[in-house]
């Protein structure tokens, strides 16, 4: 820890030099809140000290040679060019140091991989560009939601001042109880993403078609933030992860509220909606799910992100568009929204696209969406 203080003074000085930086300067690991993250921090400090000592030693010799053995000082070159003893020593000693380092590191690697006996299991699915969460075992089983960036577009484009948690805030936070072993099963629906919370020392690539897992046990209540760390296309920098760690009682309360809310949201897909209602709701769904690619103007960014304004598909028969939204288009960023959105939301967003930007096609009712689901 003494080392960190010295470096933090240096870092602070360097930070002062950068004028205009209003925010606190981060320069080292976030404060660890899990055992694994603490182990990583300690290993890193030990290895840094070791490196500094070796570095100073080796380059002490180099700089002394640069200073004392200069031609301008009249130093005559000696002509020695080997020394078996020295050469064996500087091969064997580093090898021994490595063996000594390897021991504690191996223990941490094994602990990090041990996902057995979890108290709560959450499945995380990476989508372009948001995260889906399903609580699949333990208290809260059955809870399911999608979590995406809540920083407004205006802040990103510089039309509004940036908030404190710029790019690190989401609409639905993951909530977990403090002190419990949480197993995180990670997968993806389209391309590879990576789920990471630095304060937990937990990072796992999300591989489409495969399930991988990691785990954490958060020791302190609080809100912990991370980001996707595997390049996953255009909006890779805009799919953060936020985990709120709460006490056991608060967690139980949250589970209750969440389940009630889910029951309330479960709407009757056979209800017939008015067109205006569908369009109004669809605009919100569009802003949350579609706007990054197809743009607010509906003009998209062809050819990767095709326009919806004037599109043949959008202005064509209803089943064609419903199928694309439900099932996605393989090998493109157009994902299968059937798994993420309700029949009503899909009907609403389709209706919105069919009634906007000069499109003049018929509306789609939730019942039609339900009928096309396979």
């Amino acid at each position, binding site marked *: 820890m003494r080392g960190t203080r010295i470096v933090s003074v240096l870092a602070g000085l360097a930070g002062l030099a950068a004028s205009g930086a209003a925010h606190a300067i981060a320069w080292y690991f976030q404060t660890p809140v899990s055992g694994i993250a603490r182990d990583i921090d300690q290993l890193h400090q030990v290895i840094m000290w070791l*490196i500094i000592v070796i570095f100073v030693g080796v380059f002490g010799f180099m700089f002394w040679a*640069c200073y004392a053995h200069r031609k301008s000082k009249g130093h005559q070159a*000696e002509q020695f060019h*080997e020394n078996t003893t020295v050469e064996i020593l500087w091969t064997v000693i580093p090898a021994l140091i490595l063996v000594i380092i390897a021991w504690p590191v191996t223990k941490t690697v094994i602990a990090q991989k041990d996902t057995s006996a979890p108290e709560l299991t959450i499945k995380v699915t990476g989508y372009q560009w948001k995260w889906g969460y399903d609580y699949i075992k333990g208290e809260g089983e059955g809870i399911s939601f999608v979590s995406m960036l809540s920083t407004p577009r205006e802040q990103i484009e510089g039309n509004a001042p940036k908030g404190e948690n710029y790019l690190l805030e989401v609409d639905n936070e993951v909530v977990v109880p403090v002190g419990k072993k949480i197993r995180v099963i990670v997968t993806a629906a389209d*391309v590879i993403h990576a789920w990471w919370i630095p304060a937990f020392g937990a*990072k796992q690539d999300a591989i489409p078609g495969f399930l991988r897992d990691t785990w954490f046990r958060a020791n302190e209540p609080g809100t912990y933030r991370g980001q*996707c760390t*595997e390049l996953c296309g255009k909006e890779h920098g805009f799919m953060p992860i936020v985990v709120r760690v709460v006490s056991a009682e608060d967690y139980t309360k949250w589970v209750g509220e969440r389940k009630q809310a889910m029951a309330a949201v479960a709407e009757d897909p056979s209800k017939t909606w008015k067109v205006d209602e569908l369009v109004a709701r669809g605009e919100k769904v569009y802003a949350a799910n579609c706007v990054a690619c197809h743009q607010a103007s509906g003009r998209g960014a062809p050819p990767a992100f095709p326009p919806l304004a004037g599109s043949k598909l959008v202005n064509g028969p209803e089943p064609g568009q419903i199928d694309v939204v439900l099932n996605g288009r393989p*090998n493109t960023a157009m994902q299968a929204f059937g798994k993420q959105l309700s029949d009503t939301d899909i009907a609403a967003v389709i209706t919105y696209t069919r009634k906007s930007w000069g499109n003049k096609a018929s509306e789609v009712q939730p019942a039609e969406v339900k009928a096309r689901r396979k």
Partner: protein
Amino acid sequence: MSAVVDTHAHGHHDHHGGYGGIMRWITTTNHKDIGTLYLWFSFIMFSVGGLMAVGIRMELFSPGLQVMDPDFFNQLTTMHGLIMVFGAIMPVFVGFANWQIPMMIGAPDMAFARLNNWSFWLLPFAATLLVLSFFMPGGAPGVGWTMYAPLTVQMGIGMDLTIFAVHILGMSSILGSINIITTILNMRAPGMTLMKMPLFVWTWLITAYLLVAAMPVLAGAVTMTLTDRHFGTSFFNAAGGGDPVLYQHVFWFFGHPEVYIIALPGFGVISQVIPAFSRKPLFGYASMVYATSAIAIISFIVWAHHMYTVGMPVTGQLFFMYATMLVAVPTGVKVFNWVATMWKGSLTFETPMLFACGFLFMFTLGGFTGLVLSLVPIDIQVHDTYYVVAHFHYVMVAGALFAAFAGIYFWLPKWTGRMYDETLGKVHFWLTMIFFNVTFFVQHFLGLAGMPRRVPDYPLMFEAWNKISSIGAFGMGLSQLLFLYIVLKALRSGAKAPEKPWEGADSLEWTHLPTPVPYHTFETPPVLK
């Protein structure tokens, strides 16, 4: 060979092949001409890749999206990586190989002179394809230089151009390597035994074997990507029975040896420069050869250390961690040998030596962060963050690029017969050294604090370091204009180089050939003591 022999028959010793003007360069089979072509080509690519880096750092100067949209940002990071690795760093060392290997082993030219011409002239076509991809519908691929599946399947036609460019670049490298291996094994002057070869030749012999082994693997990886994209195969698609992680295994089986393909020739240059300016033989020549070979062999069994977060079994993680840690031993031996070469020498610090010392210092720093990254738990924390970006730029820029600068300043007088401006050379070194560290040292902090790589925008707590890093990058870019000026000035109006510009240099090109070297050298093998 025959072209060279023909000109001899006519007795024109300074004859530039049969043509003048541009045709001289297109038809040349002379190793020195081809070396020059490689060097200029790599400088042009270095400038193009550098401009892309400036674009990246402009966008990252402040949080928010200012200069470009995220798609174009991804295209820039991808092409910056591909162009710097395949267009700038690899060709610059092939340029050195062409110029130096025949002269250092006492051979008249490369073994396959026409093949040599073709290895070079493939490159401009590959570079054109890479640059052209920006103008395709959908732009260049925005997938990162590693081209991970299945993101590659979503890209436009620019991805296909990139795949073909990689094929052509690989072909060029393999042909060049076959030429280098054959030249070194068959065309050494009598008495030039393997263990008497300058270390630069040794490192290239080993590098050429790495290239022949690794480049076909990359060609395989991108070909599988191509067939997944267009011909309905499912190598990397789980829905069809494939596995996206397979791509990463194949890519890094090429990718890790590639790191040493880039680094080893640089080690060779440094091993010529440091003894010359220390006026003292290289310490531990034999152990240098063994260490280089050991690094090359180990480089084939460490590839999955780029993939600790994909979810490997614990035994896999441990194996790749131990193997990776092992690299530190032979690398350490090399650094110790270089320092021991300087120890009790008679040192002077002309520009090549400054760059060599800069290399030693910075490359070791990059090696140490490599050791940090070899440890699975720490790597999982900093994987795909700016810590990794800082690490590999210390290895690639402070390693390979500094070595290339050292080599150019070292051999320029021999090649051209002109001296460069020593003061300006030193200014170039210090500017590059300072701005390099301003750019990349702070990126270690960004990575530790949690800034992911390949993002066009970032949370506010990363702003200060990003500003500093961007300023450093702009300074470093501008400093390279000075380098161009120094080289052009030396070519146009540089002072005539003395017969032996560097007192301590003792390989064949310095001891057996006049300055500047004539167009054809060692038509009869030199007599070695």
